[in-house]
């Protein structure tokens, strides 16, 4: 056994902490600005800073810049301590840090410019997606090489959560970002319609799970015991917590698509697994909170523990609310409303924000060999932050429930009590102002943190941790292969496989197999129980062996995570080809596709859904229920997740071209009280029809059945269609607008929504009432 001194690389932790605080302020400030825009439309200043473009910037900045940098800081600091090893490569650490910051800057530039894939939390265009994959690979390499060089055989529970984060985010990002480039900053998702919806929310939900939750749970398992100066409440519970959480989480994505055109089986799976998630989530929450047993008095004095205790409590609240919102009936009320906004901010501000603050207040004094500059300022941050979250969440709860109830309210004759969408928006306007105040208070608290930690760093000097370690070879309990093929794994796979096989059998066959499985499980359990009695007390248990084997642990984690994703996504992808062959829908024309790209660029999907759910109040307001067929050629899908404005799935033909033109120029002229920004700039922005054929060709590559002759004449056809709409606008209202303007293309797209060309009016600009009558719809008057 040799002794050697190891110096940790704490410089990289300092860098990530600084970046997280900086981007945290930026991301939250953008959040305050878009909250203001919703309450006060005049705050939409110019096309680059309008709500539709800034909202993705806010979500990306908070998730990937603020929490991302915080996560890297926590992982790098704790991994070195838990493995008793310096990070594998200083170079990889630096490439990781600067590469990630470059990606954030690229996002901050391209999103306001309108370069977006139009998928929530995955808006960044393909070159940036490639950069993310490369930098994530650098991070993974650095992490796993450090594990390989570790001087502590056992992998502590925090490391398991980091492993799950790294492997799962890789899979999610790669699959959901698969797209066909059609320009330097433009691409189309290879998935379309319902498939894209399923893949996107498998990604979107698990971005919450494996980017915002599992790494922070790992951080909780390391930093909370450190701050409380006592071990985690139950290490055994953490084993159950880990495996059940990573296995169940991946199935829950479809709860974002309840009551939509997603097949029922997928909706039900998503709902059931979301409900089951409450068990591991609360197991983890209680494990965190009970770590403070016997140390509750410290909460009075120590701001670090205050933030951790409140953060874990908010995690508990959010993970109770999440499963409740995943019940189809509750989702029917809450989906598309501000209730969901309340839910995510309880998680983001309460869980992520407060865990970050607790970690920073604990870390920075240690990284600079000094004491926290002002404990009272940290306490002030805690109280103003908590008050801010409560104001935010409560106002959005009230807004969400109010609007959800107004949408479904019926009058005595069974019609809509509030047929005008604007009426339901005006009813919650006061809540939008209250949310703005809550968010601003939270931001002020975070700025106080930045100031406090800046003064703390200035009062000390950078220090690196050193430790003396024994570099003896690990006790060789077992090989990786013997652990990987251990009895628990084999038994689980055999029993799971047998249960799955019943899907292919008839009722009698399935019953026989299930009874056999049950008997085998009971017999094996009884035998194991008997055998365990004779086992030597010192014999290491299987899980203990796994904890010492990095490759086996990672492999089992990948299997646990992939099962849910494969089970949900593969059937949908396999069935996709048949659906494409049997559809009665027709692809968008060149001009409509260009208009759709304008719709994406302006971020219209942030406020408008395209999914009419099977409720009477939805069909009365918006028309016939949406089907899978309606969006089969949509790459990406545009079902949306929030209605700040009305649904657009069947808006085509409801209003005249002139109505749309005027509405885009000044929404309030048409809909008094609307908070929609003006899109007058689209009248002056021109579409490049030279690129239209390439776009059709790319769509054809991903399965949209454009004919070669359609592609060959795409440019001419698009120009002619644009000229027809421009001419109709001139006749209807004496409007002069360029035939190749983005506004004309957008009108063409909106007029197409909910209709296939055979239904479309022969002449663009057919009066709305005629077309509405063909759908037998009552105009809602929005």
């Amino acid at each position, binding site marked *: 056994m040799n002794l050697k001194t190891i110096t940790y690389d704490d410089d990289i932790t300092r860098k990530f902490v600084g970046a997280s605080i900086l981007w945290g302020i930026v991301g939250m400030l953008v959040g305050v600005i878009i909250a203001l825009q919703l309450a006060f439309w005049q705050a939409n200043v110019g096309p680059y800073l309008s709500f539709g473009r800034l909202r993705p910037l806010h979500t990306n900045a908070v998730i990937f810049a603020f929490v991302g940098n915080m996560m890297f800081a926590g992982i790098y600091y704790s991994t070195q*301590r838990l493995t008793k090893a310096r990070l594998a490569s200083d170079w990889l650490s630096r490439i990781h840090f600067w590469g990630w910051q470059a990606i954030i800057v690229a996002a901050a530039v391209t999103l306001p410019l309108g370069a977006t894939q139009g998928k929530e939390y995955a808006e960044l265009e393909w070159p940036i997606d490639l950069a993310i994959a490369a930098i994530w690979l650098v991070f993974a390499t650095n992490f796993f090489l450090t594990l390989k060089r570790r001087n502590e055989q*056992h992998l*502590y529970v925090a490391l398991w959560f980091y492993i799950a984060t790294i492997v799962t985010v890789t899979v999610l990002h790669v699959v959901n970002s698969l797209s066909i480039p059609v320009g330097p900053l433009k691409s189309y998702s290879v998935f379309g319609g319902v498939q894209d919806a399923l893949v996107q929310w498998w990604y979107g939900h698990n971005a919450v799970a494996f980017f915002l939750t599992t790494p922070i749970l790992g951080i909780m398992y390391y930093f909370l015991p450190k701050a409380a100066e006592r071990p*985690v409440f139950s290490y*055994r519970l953490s084993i159950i917590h880990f495996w059940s959480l990573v296995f169940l989480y991946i199935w829950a994505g479809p709860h974002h698509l309840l009551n939509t055109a997603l097949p029922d089986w997928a909706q039900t799976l998503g709902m059931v697994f979301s409900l089951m998630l409450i068990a591991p989530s609360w197991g983890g929450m209680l494990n965190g909170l009970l770590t403070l047993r016997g140390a509750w008095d410290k909460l009075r004095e120590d701001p670090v523990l205050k933030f951790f205790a409140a953060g874990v409590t908010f995690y508990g609240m959010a993970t109770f609310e999440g499963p409740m919102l995943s019940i189809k009936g509750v989702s029917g009320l809450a989906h598309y409303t501000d209730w969901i906004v309340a839910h995510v901010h309880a998680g983001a501000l309460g869980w992520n924000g407060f865990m970050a603050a607790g970690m920073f207040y604990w870390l920075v004094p240690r990284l600079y*060999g000094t004491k926290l500059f002002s404990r009272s300022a940290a306490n002030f941050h805690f109280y103003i932050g908590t008050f801010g979250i409560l104001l935010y969440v409560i106002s959005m709860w009230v807004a969400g429930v109010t609007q959800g109830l107004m949408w479904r309210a019926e009058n005595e004759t069974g019609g809509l009590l509030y047929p005008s969408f604007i009426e339901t928006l005006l009813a919650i306007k006061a809540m939008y102002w209250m949310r703005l105040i809550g968010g601003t208070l939270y931001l002020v608290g975070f700025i106080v943190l930045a100031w406090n930690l800046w003064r703390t760093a200035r009062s000390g000097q950078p220090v690196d941790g050193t430790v003396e370690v024994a570099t003896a070879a690990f006790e060789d309990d077992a090989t990786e292969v013997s652990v990987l093929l251990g009895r628990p794994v084999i038994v689980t796979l055999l029993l799971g496989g047998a249960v799955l096989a019943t899907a292919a059998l008839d009722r009698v066959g399935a019953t026989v197999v*299930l009874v056999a499985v049950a008997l085998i499980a009971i017999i094996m359990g009884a035998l194991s*129980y008997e055998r365990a*009695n004779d086992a030597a007390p010192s014999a290491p*248990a299987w899980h203990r062996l796994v904890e010492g084997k990095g490759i086996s642990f990672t492999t089992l984690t990948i299997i646990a995570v992939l099962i849910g994703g494969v089970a949900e996504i593969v059937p949908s992808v396999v069935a996709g080809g048949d659906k494409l062959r049997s559809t009665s829908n027709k692809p968008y024309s060149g001009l409509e596709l260009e208009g759709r790209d304008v719709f994406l660029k302006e971020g219209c999907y942030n406020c408008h859904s395209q999914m009419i759910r099977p409720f009477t109040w939805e069909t009365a307001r918006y028309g016939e229920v949406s089907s899978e067929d309606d969006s089969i050629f949509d790459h990406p899908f545009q079902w949306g997740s929030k209605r700040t404005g009305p649904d657009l799935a069947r808006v085509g033909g409801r209003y005249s071209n002139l109505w749309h033109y005027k509405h885009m120029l000044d929404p309030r002229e048409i809909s008094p009280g609307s908070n929609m920004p003006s899109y007058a700039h689209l009248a002056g922005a021109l579409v490049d029809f030279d690129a239209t054929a390439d776009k059709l060709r790319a769509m054809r590559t991903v399965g949209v059945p454009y004919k070669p002759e359609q592609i060959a004449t795409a440019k001419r056809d698009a120009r002619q269609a644009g000229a027809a709409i421009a001419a109709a606008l001139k006749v209807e209202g004496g409007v002069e607008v360029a035939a190749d303007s983005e506004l004309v293309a957008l009108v063409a797209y909106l007029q197409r929504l909910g209709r296939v060309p055979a239904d479309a009016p022969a002449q663009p600009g057919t009066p709305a009432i005629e077309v509405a009558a063909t759908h037998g719809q009552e105009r809602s008057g929005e």
Partner: protein
Amino acid sequence: MEVLELTVFASVVLGLAAVLFFAWNVRSRSHEHTEHLALLPLANDERSRPKTEEEAL
């Protein structure tokens, strides 16, 4: 009805398996290693070293 029967059956099997698994776990003392592993992050063997001028560059 088929689904109900299947669900009840699956629940009973899962419940029974969980009880057996728990009993096996307790009997095989597989949990005992956890006592000292929970202490891993609390090791207090670290010292701080200011960065040298060379490193600070």
